[in-house]
């Protein structure tokens, strides 16, 4: 009903191959963007913005990064947390050494450091695949985590081995540090995430994305078609790590306001991996849906029962959160192994032909 496309004629190849060929989708995206850019900052309170939306967007970006590598190129990685860490520590070093350069520039630039490290750890991917590659990236995770603890230069010899975010401004408005308002930080995060998602969308719909997908589907065939495996795989590692690095830098600078090495532990890698598996491998929308399910759902489960006046102990709620989240993950994977993005696609298809079954 909603998706009736009668009367929408495609008169050129460009309009037929557009990312959102249907008018309703374009309107929908516009509405979502308006709500995100205007609705939430105006109406949302600090808790919604600070504890829900900012981390959700940051994790979505990290999930997009991993999805480029695992979902689009088919290279399994367990080093996401560490690559995020590289971004965060790089940004910290850069802004403490060059405090006059705008912090947003450093957040973006720190992605390149992460990309370089990612490319180095991507080297084994030419020879090993699947689970074996996962082990190789696991090595990256442990090695980098070790660096974050053992190289005091990285955290400027701080006694607690933690990195702290100094206050930085943009056009006279405080954007990092504890005195930056949640709305400001939210808008910066949102802008970066939207811009980078748009870039990712262009990458995966273009030549590079097609090369990645060719490698994912069958790398020997891709090689025979003239795709050079090593540069393409390394490019996937670099771009993926770039996204993760920027996400990591934002995580510390625009959300936490400080961090220690444990933030970038193997758990973080797993969380992001679960996000893309549940959201949908090889789907940008899936990265957002997965981040929402894995990150926002526990928060709701944790904070809703007390609001409804249910007399539950904090620890009981915590245990229940684990169980319900786990059960939902199992349920969604049984209902649709290809992830939430696929579920949305099926639903959309149904809506297009509604009320007829076919």
């Amino acid at each position, binding site marked *: 009903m909603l998706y009736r496309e009668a009367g929408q004629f495609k008169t050129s190849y460009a309009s037929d191959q557009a990312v959102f060929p249907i008018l309703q989708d374009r309107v929908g995206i516009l509405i979502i963007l308006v709500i995100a850019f205007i609705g939430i900052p105006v109406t*949302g*309170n*600090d*808790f*919604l913005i*600070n*504890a*829900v939306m900012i981390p959700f967007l940051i994790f979505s970006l990290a999930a997009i990064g991993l999805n480029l590598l695992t979902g689009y190129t088919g290279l399994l990685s367990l080093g996401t947390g560490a690559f995020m860490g590289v971004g965060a520590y790089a940004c910290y070093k850069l802004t*403490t050494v060059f*405090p006059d350069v705008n912090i947003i520039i450093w957040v973006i630039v720190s992605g390149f450091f992460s990309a370089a490290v990612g490319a180095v750890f991507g080297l084994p991917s030419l020879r090993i695949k699947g689970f074996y590659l996962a082990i190789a990236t696991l090595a990256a995770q442990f090695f980098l985590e070790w660096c974050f*603890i053992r190289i005091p230069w990285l955290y*400027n010899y*701080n*006694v*607690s*081995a*933690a990195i*702290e975010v*100094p*206050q930085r401004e943009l056009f006279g408005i*405080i954007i990092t*540090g*504890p*005195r930056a308002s949640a709305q400001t930080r939210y808008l910066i995060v949102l802008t970066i995430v939207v811009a980078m998602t748009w870039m990712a969308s262009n990458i995966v719909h273009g030549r590079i994305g097609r090369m990645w997908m060719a490698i994912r589907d069958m790398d020997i065939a891709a090689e025979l078609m003239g795709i050079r495996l090593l540069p393409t795989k390394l490019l996937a590692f670099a771009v993926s790590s770039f996204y993760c690095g920027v996400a990591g830098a934002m995580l510390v600078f625009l959300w*936490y*306001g*400080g*961090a*220690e090495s*444990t*933030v970038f*532990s193997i758990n973080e890698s797993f969380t992001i991996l679960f996000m893309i598996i549940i959201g949908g491998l090889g789907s940008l929308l899936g990265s957002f849906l997965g981040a*929402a399910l894995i990150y*926002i*759902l526990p*928060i*709701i489960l*944790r*904070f*809703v029962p*007390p*609001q*409804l006046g249910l007399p539950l*102990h*904090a*620890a009981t*709620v*915590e*245990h229940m959160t684990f169980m319900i989240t786990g059960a939902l993950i199992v349920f969604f994977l049984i*209902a*649709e192994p290809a992830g939430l993005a696929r*579920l*949305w696609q*099926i*639903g959309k298809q*149904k809506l297009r032909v509604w009320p007829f079954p076919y």
Partner: protein
Amino acid sequence: MKARDILVGMTCASLLGAAVLASKAQAQDSIYVPLLTYRTGPYSGSGTPIANGMHDYLAMLNERDGGIGGVKLNIEECETGYDTKKGVECWESIKGKNPAVVNPYSTGITLQIIPKAAVDKIPILSMAYGLSASAVGDKFPWVFNPPATYWDGLSMVMRYIGGKEGGLDKLKGKTVGFIFLESPYGREPLPLLQQFSKDYGFTVKEYSVAGKEMQDQSAQWLAVRRDRPDWMIMWGWGAMNPTAVKRAAENGYPMDHFIGVWWSGSDDDGRGGGQTAKGYLSLNFNGLGSNYPAIQDIKKYVVDKGKSQVEKDKFAENFYNRGVYNSVLVAEAIRNAQKLSGKKVVTGEDVRRGLETLNISEAHWKELGFPNFAAPISGVNCTDHNGHAPAYMQQWDGAKWVKISDWIQPMKEKVRPMLDEAAKEYVEKNTGWPKRTEACDKSS
């Protein structure tokens, strides 16, 4: 197929609805005391008894006295799992509800919320943990860490060792091992330890235990076996403590030369080694056992009425009493705040003043129903947010903790300059750190 659509729709709708609900704040006419606790995760072994003690004392005040100054306390726990991320979430969720004071119960969380405290006008009470440098009140007006900092703790351990060796100079050429949890908490005492090693000429061996290997530790203790340090000092937490005690016993390390900080001295830590752990030492600053009128009141008003989550046989264990101690500080700060502000329902800003004038003399401890429970807290003022109170040494006798020493005073003359130095450095590194604007009240 249709059922699936409905399900998706329902999930989306409930997500939205719940988000709206979660964002609504509550109105109140009581004093809101949030407790950041952890009863889940790998650190729950240490966290649960403390959570029980903190909760039960405040609940007892509600039951027995109708709150503080006639105003009920609204006690609410927020589960952090000792996870910094969840701790920050908790902070965000409670800050709108006008909390009187926040007890983060994790050094990692404390470090994250210290900069937020001044902005959100909520005082932090990190009782004998957190950032040592936050004891400098001029630089950190919103953070309090009485009764002693980690650096005080280390100096007390050194004083004890000095007493056993016949003078700290006798440590020259000896080796002191330091086993610590790889976290901001475990790393805090390192600078002072290195200072001591320079001053007294002993060698320091560091054994760091990462969170994921804290239940194993075989590599660390193998190294201890090889290095044979004359004394071992431990800064451990959670499951790390009982494991370390067990490993030390297995490796034949002399237990009476193995000293833990006050966070490595719960009953479960000793029990981990059982009889073989006999002789293990740890610092402590709160009384042992249930032989205090106030603790008996907790039993009568809270535990026996089934309003506590504590297991009967774990009531009034060391860490339970530690939690009670923490809550006494909270309650007295609120009482002070009521006196200073003249208001019944106090805000975070009032409690900050209350904490700054915190003073619990020996007589007052007795009045509260805790005779000889703890050393008087007298040194807290506007510049000193710590007080540097003494602690005592306790020893595990195979079944329970026994007090074996008198109050050991910290080496304030060594610690204080280092604190000032560290605070200065912290402020320099954090550009834009606000200058103290809060006025100073006279001690009550």
